């Protein structure tokens, strides 16, 4: 079947089997390998991408279900050479070690900050609670997200001023 979606701002159309999972579509068809696969049961969240701005586990979404939607993967977080504050925060606060869960964690963090620019520790922990990190023990991820909240990108500042 033919599947069309917007991925990181680009319109794409591909032929695909109806049963293909979104995670495999992204990795194998689009060769965007920053999205990872980690379990068979939708528990680990290393496959998280944003669908219309909302975090979804792409191992539990068929590519066909994403037809007509906008997908953001880790490759779409930075703007050119400018990193998203979340990406910068993870580097500043050692929010990653092996890097495998990191793309999913950062996308969830971005979605959280988009709806709640100043989350507290509990809100951050709740936001990432569907995702597993085996390396960091989560505290530095919480710090990374807070760093991003405290260092919003310039455009975000402008938007905040408008909405305020």
């Amino acid at each position, binding site marked *: 079947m033919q599947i069309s979606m917007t991925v990181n701002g680009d319109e794409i159309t591909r032929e695909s089997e109806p049963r293909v999972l979104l995670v495999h579509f992204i990795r194998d068809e689009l060769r965007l390998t920053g999205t990872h696969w*980690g379990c068979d049961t939708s528990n680990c969240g290393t496959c998280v991408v944003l669908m219309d701005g909302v975090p979804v586990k792409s191992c539990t979404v068929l590519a066909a279900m994403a037809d007509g939607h906008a997908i953001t993967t880790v490759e779409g977080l930075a703007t050119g050479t400018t990193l998203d504050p979340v990406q910068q925060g993870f580097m500043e606060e050692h929010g990653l070690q092996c*890097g495998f869960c990191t793309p999913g964690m950062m996308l969830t963090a971005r979605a959280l900050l988009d709806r709640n620019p100043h989350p507290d520790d509990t809100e951050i922990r709740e936001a990432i609670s569907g995702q597993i990190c085996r390396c*960091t023990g989560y505290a530095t991820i919480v710090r990374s997200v807070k760093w991003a909240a405290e260092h919003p990108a310039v455009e975000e500042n402008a938007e905040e001023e408008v909405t305020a």
Partner: protein
Amino acid sequence: MTITETHAPNPAAGDADRPIGYGRIQRKEDPRFVRGKGHYVDDIVLPGMLHGAILRSPVAHARLVSIDTTRALAHPGVVAVITGKDLLGLKLAWAPTLSADVQAVLVTDKVRFQGQEVAFVIAEDRYAARDALELIDVDYDVLTPVVDARHALDPGAPVIRDEIEGRTDNHIFDWEAGNAAETDAVFASADVIVKQEIVYPRSHPAPMETCGAVADFEPIEGALTLYETSQAPHAHRTLFAIVSGIPEHKIRIVSPDIGGGFGNKVGIYPGYILAVVGSIVTGRPVKWVEDRSENLMSTSFARDYIMQGEIAATKDGKILAVRTNVLADHGAFNATAQPTKYPAGFFHIFTGSYDLQAAHCKVTGVYTNKAPGGVAYACSFRVTEAVLLVERMVDMLAQKLEMDPAELRLKNLIKPEQFPYKNKTGWEYDSGNYERAMRLSMEIAGYDDLRREQKEKRARGELMGIGISFFTETVGAGPRKHMDIVGLGMADGAELRIHPTGKAVVRISVQSQGQGHETTFAQIVAEEIGIPPEDIDVVHGDTDQTPFGLGTYGSRSTPVSGAAVALVARKVREKAKFIAAAMLETRPEDLEWEKGRWFVKGDPSVGKTMAEIAMGAHGTVALPEGIDGNLDAEVTYDPPNLTFPFGAYICVVDVDPGTGHVKVRRFIAVDDCGTRINPMIIEGQVHGGLTDGVGMALMQFIGFDEAGNNLGGSFMDYLIPTSMEVPNWETGFTVTPSPHHPIGAKGVGESATVGSPPAILNAVVDALSPLGVTHMDIPCTPARVWAAMQGRATPPI
């Protein structure tokens, strides 16, 4: 309480905030990871690449009657199906393990654990390969399994390894350390003896990235390139050469970015071998990546020790001796990865951090119908089990003597002046100041206040617990004269080249799985020769690009490879002195070193920086005799002893009296890993290990039913801590450098995994002690805690 540390900046750097050498710097590897540009095995796509999938046994113990692959072969996209019979023809049906046993690559005669490899399908894409697994018809004649290690040695127990001629039981080894007679004598005259069976259940490291490989065999050259999830690429290359017959110089192992290892990626699994066989058979590259259930059910498990512990003391709390008998469940094949002389790993450091008169342990290893493995989860070769045993026994002794567990420990810890300390089972602890770490941990915790709070809460019927663990690790294996894995000495190499413009590349034999080697090892070089870390490239994970060495596990990277890197840098620095002397037309002995440059004694303005010396070395400077025209060096480091990091941990838990649910409210970890290279990375290592500790103490558990079915085969059942189960860690540190290590560093990768489970368990038992509970086994799941509260035996799950 926050502890910060600073390092004197290098005046030559021109930036006081940026240390050249040790100190907190951002990781050099992070920019690619945060952009999603990490490069893991499953990201590799080669032209013409096929995909493999493994059919696994649904039963734990069964004769293989027949396999019919006809329907699978006819499935669209399927290129080949390989069975055990095919491998017999290639003499690859069995492969040697890391413990002088063999393991079936594919079943030929009998299935020995649930999830064992039965057949390998190779297809054009991963979906077709998986589809075809369903089309293989296998007929099993199911046998009674041996599930409980306690019954493995029963007369009449089914013999699991009946393919070994003459074998009539499931016994693997008996191993002892310490002195039984001396220990018995001390026990015979002791005022107080406490005994307890302590079970460290089967667990699994479960890295986020499962194991996988891409094999690419090139038939004209007879050359194999194998991309695989490996913590030990060089050792794997040698073993692949021995097993496959492909000459070692024709094998290249590449271990790219690794999505967590924790010991899971030390062994050589059938899947890796099958990918290689598949590539040879089809003439095309073959990728195999296991799924999560395959990872949890078939690759290296950890722990599975049933320990009969005993501790002897005087009535006023002087600990005299410990002894234990251990039953070790090794699964269906003895595949533990540990130094050859030590079948129970370094378990014999179970004497812990205490000054004892005697100690003795005996460990018996047995086969069961479970997955093979055994040393595979950040355990420092079984130090996890040792620390759980001794720290639980010390707590039980405190409870019996009605002494505060902190006070009892302080009374018995080895004193600073006793180092180097020879314990009663053959270790020589290199250095330590245990009391200082214990007191710092108590200070950060506010220990006395916590005890007061607990007293008030107990009066109200609330279940608050405070648990302590003081651990001593033994890591950095190890001296070649004592330690090898399948005959390969446990040394590591390093090569350093300074390019003409003063930029450098250091090549190392260990392999990061997230520990940040690209940063830490650059910092070690930077500290020694003054070239900034950003100008030093760290190359690892490719056997064609790096010197030989045994890899990363048992917290050995910094103790062994870190030493190699420091020494190779010193060699370069020394060579640089001779070249600088030639450039300055002076004698080498007239030069003095400051970080980054050699200068003339008494005239600091006259000197040469490393970059200038590097250009000189590669340029036209007339070099002294015996100095060749480069600024390169290489070393192989053979450690004189292991290193002994230690720490004092305190955990505070609240137990819900209505549900048995345990909440870890606070966790204080004071670690001493000797010289600290990058405090940020050290803290990260500790945090990760503490989280593993919460998992092991409260959640993670691979159980089996009576038929040998694995009950922890997915993340639905094998529960791993999320952000909601762990607190904000509180860390502190002391620094007691290792006297025998070139930079005094001891390693920290597994300290917290080793040290934290007993602190949590001791806290849970402490919380339940008003109800008469003296012990329970981990994991302290709500059901188990509830049972303990009711005075019932611990339920199996």
